[in-house]
């Protein structure tokens, strides 16, 4: 099982780095949006809530461009059947899920670095911020992987995926924004409840998606 998983992940990583579609989209998107916000506000945003909201909107929308790409490429080049005749659908799901998680965490880290660099924000609780960012991006990946598959199978490029994913992701989106906002304020707080909520949310959706994925990833 682990070997099969590793082979799938290795294949996807090789293809992604060779085709370099994801990397270029994500990098350009997050940089452009952050800088344009920097321009618009001259780098001075006083309310921490606004900082957090902008940060998460950038992460969310750069995620929306990439999370369904992993499946879309398989459908577009109709290599999905090739995978299905060699591996069970759950192995394919887990490998895509892990890739989406890595992609989302990389996006989150990159966006926060660019954000702090471009827009003057005072981070009081750095470690908490990183923890929430990672928990949030992981839960984004967990929640939207199957929806990415649905959007890819439906054949619609990016648009449908965002529409489908947004209402499902809204709960964790609001929790993430609120807890990140507190990181930009002085008073001490514990991000534990937010992180637990985010992880619980992703565990539940991850489990349900694990069971549902084989129903849609077949008969190509």
């Amino acid at each position, binding site marked *: 099982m682990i070997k099969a998983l590793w082979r799938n992940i290795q294949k996807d990583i090789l*293809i992604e780095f060779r085709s370099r579609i994801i990397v270029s989209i994500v990098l350009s998107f997050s940089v452009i949006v952050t800088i344009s916000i920097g321009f618009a506000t001259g780098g001075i945003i006083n309310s921490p809530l606004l900082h957090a909201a902008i940060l998460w909107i950038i992460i969310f929308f750069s995620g929306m461009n990439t999370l369904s790409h992993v499946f879309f490429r398989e459908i577009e080049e109709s290599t999905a059947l090739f995978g299905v005749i060699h591996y069970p659908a759950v192995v394919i799901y887990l490998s895509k899920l892990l890739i989406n998680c890595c992609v989302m965490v990389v996006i989150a880290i990159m966006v926060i670095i660019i954000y702090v660099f471009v827009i003057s924000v005072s981070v009081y609780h750095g470690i908490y911020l990183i923890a929430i960012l990672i928990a949030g991006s992981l839960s984004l990946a967990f929640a939207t992987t199957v929806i990415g598959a649905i959007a890819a199978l439906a054949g619609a490029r990016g648009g449908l995926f965002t529409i489908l994913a947004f209402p499902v992701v809204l709960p964790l989106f609001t929790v993430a924004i609120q807890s990140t906002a507190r990181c930009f304020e002085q008073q001490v707080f514990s991000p534990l409840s937010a992180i637990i909520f985010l992880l619980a949310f992703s565990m539940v959706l991850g489990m349900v998606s694990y069971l549902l994925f084989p129903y849609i990833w077949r008969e190509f």
Partner: protein
Amino acid sequence: MVTVKASNLSKRYTRMLFRDMSFSVATGQSLAIAGPNGSGKSTLLKIIAGVMTPDSGNVAYWYNDKPVDTAYIRNYIGFAAPYINVYKYLTALENITFAIGTVDDDAVQLLDVLGLSPHSNTMLMFYSTGMIQRVKLALAFLKKASVLCLDEPGSNLDEQGKRVLFSLLEKVQPTTAIFIATNDAHELNFCKRSIVLD
């Protein structure tokens, strides 16, 4: 020793492709599926390979007289078809490591026989369609599966390629059950039995 038993399969798209199709193929036997384009040859082959569910009827796999759970059928099947695309951004060897797991000397030897070894480290996007077809055949044969499903295996192959294909088929015939969906006369009379879909 494997037996593939299909009992009254039927499948319908816009029209009824086939109805109450039953046959049984054991190791060492071969079955050709002939018929004009769009008559459901590929659909039937996909059903046999367990990648598609029929509207009614079922396909049962018996390995050494023990029934095989449908979830594990894929380990017993080598499948090559025009609609199964390999990864263009991977090289031939990488595709093989993905599908089969390891590139052992059988693999190297087979690639050599198929004339692919000089290019085995270049990405498949630079291959011609004939070479891609050879890679697909290599992937199916390297699985060393007890059932072999081939959909128009000879397509895009030159004379030399076809000769290699038939030699490979003869070599594995005693130990595998072979299904070939084709309209090619040569492949049709290679198989002892055949079904015609209209």
